[in-house]
């Protein structure tokens, strides 16, 4: 735990090293959100509800999922793949610490700084455009969301770590990361609420880990699912964390055996 805390602090320091980058990145990251909001604004000039979603619900959905994305997404795979390919992982192999723990703690720290920088922007959006959003939340819903976010941070990192370690086995990983990002975006409900899909497709998707990043927490937020479904959702997410932890462990063992480092 002390090591995780130390890596977390390293991540915070890394995040604070170039502060202005975070600020202008925050401004530019808002463009896709605004584009989506304008699309739905235009759509709702023609209809009142879509599969039970009103305009305020849809606007709230996009902005909050974006905020969740800022919180849980680590995109560590690029950094991990680069360290493997360029041999920078050597220094971690020589130290008495788990590379996984190091990366997890470091990324958490960076995520915290990114979130702190982004929160004022979202508060501003909610404040100035509050009539377009649904911002009521009770304690139980808040705690459930917090639990889901904590689990999702872990699961998202495991998936990123998995993809990062493909660099042990593949020469070209860039395209694979792009495929992963797009798949998560659709399957998690990042492009549109999964409620817009047919029930059969939704049932299949909810077996996968991805809907628990965005669609599931928004279902909790809008009180759209029963307690049984919530418990089932958390259970599936925990099961996927266990599965990915095992897979990642196996990949690491096999990857390290294949890895060759050239020293000077």
């Amino acid at each position, binding site marked *: 735990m002390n090591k995780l805390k130390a890596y977390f602090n390293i991540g915070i320091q890394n995040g604070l090293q*170039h502060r202005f980058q975070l600020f202008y990145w925050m401004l530019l990251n808002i463009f896709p959100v605004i584009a989506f909001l304008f*699309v739905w*604004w*235009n759509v709702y000039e*023609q209809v009142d509800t*879509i599969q039970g979603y009103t305009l305020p619900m849809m606007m709230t959905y996009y902005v909050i999922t974006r905020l969740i994305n800022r919180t849980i997404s680590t995109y560590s795979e690029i950094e991990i793949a680069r360290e493997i390919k360029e041999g920078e992982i050597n220094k971690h192999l020589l130290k008495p610490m788990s590379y996984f723990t190091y990366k997890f703690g470091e990324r958490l720290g960076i995520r915290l700084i990114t979130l702190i920088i982004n929160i004022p922007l979202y508060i501003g959006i909610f404040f100035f455009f509050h009539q377009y959003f649904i911002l009521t939340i009770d304690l139980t819903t808040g705690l459930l969301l917090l639990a889901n976010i904590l689990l999702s941070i872990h699961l998202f990192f495991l998936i990123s770590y998995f993809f990062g370690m493909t660099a042990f086995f593949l020469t070209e990983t860039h*395209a694979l990361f*792009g495929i992963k990002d*797009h798949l998560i975006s*659709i399957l998690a409900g990042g492009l549109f609420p999964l409620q817009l899909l047919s029930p059969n497709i939704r049932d299949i998707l909810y077996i996968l880990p991805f809907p628990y990043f965005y669609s599931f927490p928004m279902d909790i937020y809008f009180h759209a699912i029963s307690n049984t479904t919530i418990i089932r959702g958390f259970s599936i997410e925990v099961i996927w964390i266990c599965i990915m932890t095992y897979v990642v462990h196996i990949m690491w063992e096999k990857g390290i055996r294949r890895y060759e480092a050239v020293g000077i």
Partner: protein
Amino acid sequence: MHNFKVFLQLCSVNLKVLFTYRASFYISFVLNTVWVMSFLIFIEVLFTQIQTLAGLQKGQVLLIMSFYYLFQNIGDILYRENFESFSEQLRKGELDFALVKPASSRTLIFFHRMRFDFLASFLVTLLQCVYSISQLNTPVHPGFLIIGVLYSFVGAVLFFSILSIIATFTFWLIKNESLNSLIWNLSQVARYPRGIYLGIFGKFVTYLLPLALLANIPAEISLQFQENTLLAYFISITIFLLIFSKIFWDFGLKRYSSAA
């Protein structure tokens, strides 16, 4: 002319890289298929609920999306990877190889690594374009479609200029590892009909940072309902930003210090 020869030489080198790693071609095809399909699903789901988006029918919206993918494909092949790695190169002081050569440093840095494996993405874009044309109520004249394609190249030049300006800020920021996601985020605005963007934001992305024009102008030309004044503005702003980005790049370069 000299810079154009350098550019052609870089193309030649990178084509040889493509034939060395042929699997990248097939992987890029899969990547672009996933990418195109994801937003195609979004539009299809959208149009199960509505008839038009900003006054445009499904086929017209899909055609805008096709031109969006086209200028993105051009960028992916020619310069995208170089923008993604630029921050790291700058931080490590690795730009020397470009700065000591008798050619434009910007050409050498941002066209150094071309990804001709993304040629596969043109196939996907072509399929998307054929599908969007099949969804149109009125046929598209091939001549205007070709002109639209040519204007996609203009859009790629404009987007390159915008990215160049953003990348130049790295000389002051030093660490700009999010350039990849920035490129993606900015380009999202170009994907949809420009008519959806209203108010100050609409004016901003149409005139000040003309992202909304990148795919819309080529599509409007193909559909033969372009506004001539906006078309003239599109060409003018492309030329202006290309020149301005070069001047800004030279200004930013003065801050660079090598690690050698």
